């Protein structure tokens, strides 16, 4: 049997106020994909972190900008694409510091990308600053015994 792809898109103004909406959106899609509550929670967190980064770093809290989140799933995996037209950055240059060091330096940030990489199976950026920056994240679905 062919695996049907289910596609969902949410577009919203770049404001942290909308992160709760993003989590609702991702939560509904992930539940439909058959994830259990714990997995749904992790996916919501990963996408929240991705969008919070776009809102803060790519768009610098300019609420006239738009964030696009796509969530597609089939029998195997759920794919998340987060798209912006903001500043962009070089993901390779971001070194993830240990929490111990961040604490000593009294940092309030620097945890987001690490969380995303821990929570997701694949995390990949395609950056074209000011044109289109895309983040692709994949989470493979657990196979159910009942599946053919």
């Amino acid at each position: 049997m062919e695996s049907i792809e289910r596609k969902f898109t949410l577009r919203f103004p770049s404001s942290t106020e909308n992160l709760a909406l993003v989590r609702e959106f991702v939560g509904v899609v992930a539940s439909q994909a058959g994830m259990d509550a714990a997995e749904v929670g992790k996916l919501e967190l990963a996408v929240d972190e991705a969008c919070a980064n776009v809102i803060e770093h790519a768009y610098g809290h300019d609420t006239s900008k738009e964030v696009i989140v796509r969530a597609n799933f089939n029998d195997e995996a759920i794919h998340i694409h987060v798209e912006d037209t903001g500043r962009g950055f070089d993901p390779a240059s971001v070194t993830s510091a240990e929490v111990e060091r961040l604490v000593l330096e009294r940092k309030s940030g620097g945890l987001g990308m690490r969380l995303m990489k821990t929570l997701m199976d694949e995390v990949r950026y395609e950056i074209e600053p000011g044109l289109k920056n895309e983040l692709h994240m994949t989470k493979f679905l657990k196979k159910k015994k009942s599946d053919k």
Partner: protein
Amino acid sequence: MPNPFSLSRSTEGNLSVIHLEGYLDAHTAPQFEHAIQEEIDAGRYRIIVDCASLTYISSAGLGVFMSFIEEVREQGGDIKICGLTPKVKQVFDILGFSQIYDICDNHPDAVHRFAESPLREG
């Protein structure tokens, strides 16, 4: 939304208690940051953050804990975290926060911990 964020504060003797409810994300973390800053400005360094009603936390919320703990401990105080639900606890664990913070099961435990170490140094 099902769980909007709210924060309430109280004092118990020389302890300050911050009770968090709903979701702590990049949108609501500034309120939490503000509350802790006010405690510190008032010279109150013995802080319990009660998370029993906290349904969600993202790195923005964790960052608030991270940025204040050194200062508070330098002043002989601490931030004790209690009442974490399994969902929220998991995020603390993933990032290794459980090694750095004094995480207590519940509110009375957190009070006891402060009583045990009245002059804890950072």
